[in-house]
C-alpha cells in the first residue's frame, strides 16, 4: 500500500473513532437524540465529545514529542518520559496541587503553569549538568535526564506521602493518566497547541533531518546544532508540560507511536510526522474509550491502559523488526 493511501486510511479511521466512541460507553447514546435536549445529548456534547477531542490532542502532542526527542537524540528509545521532562512537569503540577496555587497567567491556571515550570526545570537541569562537566555529548544528556527523572519521581512520592488521604487519592488518579474534562476550554487550548507544534515540526523539516543524521553532518551543512537542540528542548517543555498538566503523565505513547509511524511513513518526513500525530491521537482516543468502558462502572486510568496494551505491542513490534532484519 502506498504511503499516501495509508495516510488517508488512517485519517478516516481516526475520524471514525472520534465520531463513534462518544456514543458508546456505560450509557449508550442514541445518535438521533443528540440534537435534542436530554441527558444523553448532555453527556455527548459536554462530556464525551470534549473528552475524545482532548484525548486526540494529548495523544498527538505526546507522540510528536516522542518523534522530536528521538530525532534530537538520534536514538529511537529517547522520550520525554525517559528524560525526566514528563516527571518534571508532573512534579510541578503536584506542587501546585499541594499548595493550592491559585495564580493564573494568560488564562492558564496554576497547574498548567507549574507543569510547564517543572518541565523547564528538568531541561535546564540537564543543560546545567552538561555545562558543569563540560560535555555536550548526547550520552551525558541522556544519563542526566534519567537521573533527573528519578529525582522528580521521588519529589512526587514525597508529596503523596505528606498529602492528606483525600488529596492523595485524586492525585494518584491524575498521576496514572486521566483524561477528565467538562466543556471545551482545555480542549481548544490543547488542540491549538497541537496545531502550533505540528506546524513548527513541519516547518523545521530540514533542521530535524539534519540533527537526526548526525552532529558533524548537520554542522558542516550549516546548522548550529547546539542552539537548535537547546531551543527544541525549551519547546518540548511547553508542549509536554501542557499535556501533563491536563491529563497526567501518560506513558508509552511517545515511545511506541514514532516506531510505527517511521515504518509506515517509509522515512518520508512529512508523512511520518502526520502519521505520528494521527496515530498518537487516535490511539489515545481508543485507549480512553477502553479505559472508561472495560470495567464498568469503574474507570481504569488511561495511563494504565496505554502501558498495559503498549508494552506487549511494543515487544511484538521489536520482534517483528528483528525477524525482518535477520
Amino acid at each position, binding site marked *: 500500500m502506498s504511503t499516501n493511501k495509508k495516510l488517508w486510511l488512517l485519517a478516516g479511521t481516526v475520524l471514525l473513532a472520534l465520531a463513534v466512541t462518544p456514543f458508546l460507553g456505560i450509557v449508550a447514546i442514541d445518535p438521533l437524540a443528540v440534537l435534542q435536549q436530554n441527558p444523553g445529548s448532555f453527556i455527548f456534547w459536554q462530556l464525551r465529545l470534549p473528552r475524545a477531542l482532548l484525548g486526540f490532542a494529548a495523544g498527538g502532542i505526546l507522540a510528536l514529542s516522542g518523534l522530536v526527542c*528521538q*530525532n534530537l537524540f*538520534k*536514538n*529511537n528509545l529517547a522520550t520525554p518520559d525517559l528524560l525526566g521532562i514528563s516527571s518534571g512537569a508532573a512534579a510541578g503540577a503536584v506542587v501546585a496541587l499541594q499548595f493550592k496555587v491559585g495564580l493564573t497567567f494568560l488564562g492558564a491556571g496554576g497547574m498548567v503553569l507549574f507543569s510547564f515550570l517543572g518541565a523547564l526545570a528538568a531541561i535546564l537541569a540537564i543543560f546545567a549538568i552538561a555545562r558543569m562537566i563540560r560535555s555536550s555529548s548526547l550520552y551525558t544528556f541522556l544519563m542526566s535526564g534519567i537521573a533527573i527523572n528519578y529525582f522528580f519521581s521521588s519529589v512526587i512520592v514525597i508529596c503523596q506521602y505528606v498529602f492528606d488521604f483525600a488529596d492523595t487519592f485524586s492525585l494518584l488518579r491524575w498521576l496514572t493518566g486521566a483524561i477528565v474534562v467538562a466543556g471545551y476550554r482545555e480542549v481548544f487550548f490543547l488542540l491549538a497547541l497541537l496545531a502550533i507544534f505540528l506546524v513548527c515540526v513541519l*516547518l*523545521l523539516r*530540514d533542521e530535524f*533531518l*539534519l540533527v*537526526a*543524521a*548526525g*552532529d*558533524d*553532518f548537520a*554542522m*558542516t*551543512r*550549516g*546548522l*548550529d546544532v547546539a542552539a537548535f537542540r537547546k531551543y527544541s528542548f525549551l519547546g518540548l517543555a511547553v508542549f509536554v508540560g501542557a499535556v501533563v498538566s491536563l491529563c497526567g503523565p501518560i506513558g508509552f505513547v511517545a515511545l511506541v507511536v514514532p516506531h510505527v509511524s*517511521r515504518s509506515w511513513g517509509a*522515512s*518520508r*518526513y512529512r508523512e511520518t510526522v502526520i502519521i505520528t500525530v494521527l496515530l498518537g491521537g487516535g490511539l489515545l482516543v481508543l485507549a480512553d474509550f477502553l479505559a472508561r468502558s472495560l470495567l464498568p462502572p469503574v474507570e481504569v486510568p488511561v495511563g494504565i491502559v496505554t502501558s498495559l496494551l503498549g508494552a506487549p505491542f511494543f515487544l511484538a513490534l521489536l520482534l517483528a523488526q528483528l525477524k525482518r532484519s535477520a
Partner: protein
Amino acid sequence: MIEARGLSYAVNQRSILRDLDFTVERNDFVLVFGRNGAGKSTLLRVLAGMLREAKGEVRLAGRSLASYARKDLAMRLSYLPQADEFALPMLVRDVLLAGRYPYRSIFQKLTRRDMEAFAAGVAQFGLEGLLTRNMQTLSGGERKKVLLAGAFIQDVPLILLDEPLSFLDPASALHLVRLLEALHREGRTIVVVSHEIERFFPLATKMLALQSGALRYFGDRMFSTQLFQDIYGVSFQRITAAGREIIFVNE
C-alpha cells in the same frame, strides 16, 4: 584558501596540535599523513570549524574562521568525517538535498538552482538508482559516494575528507578516488587525511606530515624515504610500474 598561524589545540592540558603554520592554496590537493594519534583528524576538524576552542588563528579566504556563521561556513567548505552516523532512517535524496541547506531560509522552497545542483550531483556520481533508498541500507562504498556527492551539491570550493577510503573494497576505493580527482580537476581545493599514501600520492600537489601534533613537513609533493621513515618508523620504496608510481612499505 585556508591558512593556519600558530595553531594549537589541547584537551585537558594534553596538547594535540602544536603551533602549526601552513597555507593551503586554491586548487591544492593536500595529503595529510602521520601515525595514529598524531592529530590528523583533530587538525581536519579545526579546519572545518568543528572545534572552535583552538588557539592561534585559522583564516579562510582571508577572514578568521571563528568569524564565520555556520551557514556562511557551509557555503565555503564541507567536511566528511571518518565515520558517519545515520542512527535513524534517512532517504538518500534528503541526504543529498541537505547540501542546499546553507542557501535556504526557513520558508523558502527549493529553487531551480538547488534542483540543478542536485541533478548535477546525482548524474556525476551515478546515484539515480539510490535516491529513495534508506541511507542505513547502503553499502559502505555507496554511503561514502552519497556523502561526497552531498559535498558536491553543497557547491563549496574546499572539501575536507577524513579517511575516505576506510572499509572500501578496491573497486569502490578506486571509484571514489576517481570522483575526488574529478572534483579537484574542476578547480576545488581538497584536503585528505589518509593512511593510504600510495593511493593519494599520485594525486597530491602538497603533503602535510604530522608527528605528535607538530608539523614535520609541509610543502610540494615529494618522495622522501627519510621523511616516511621518520614519520612511520618503517622504510618505504617507490617503483614505477605500468606507467604508475607505486609506493610500498619495505619489509
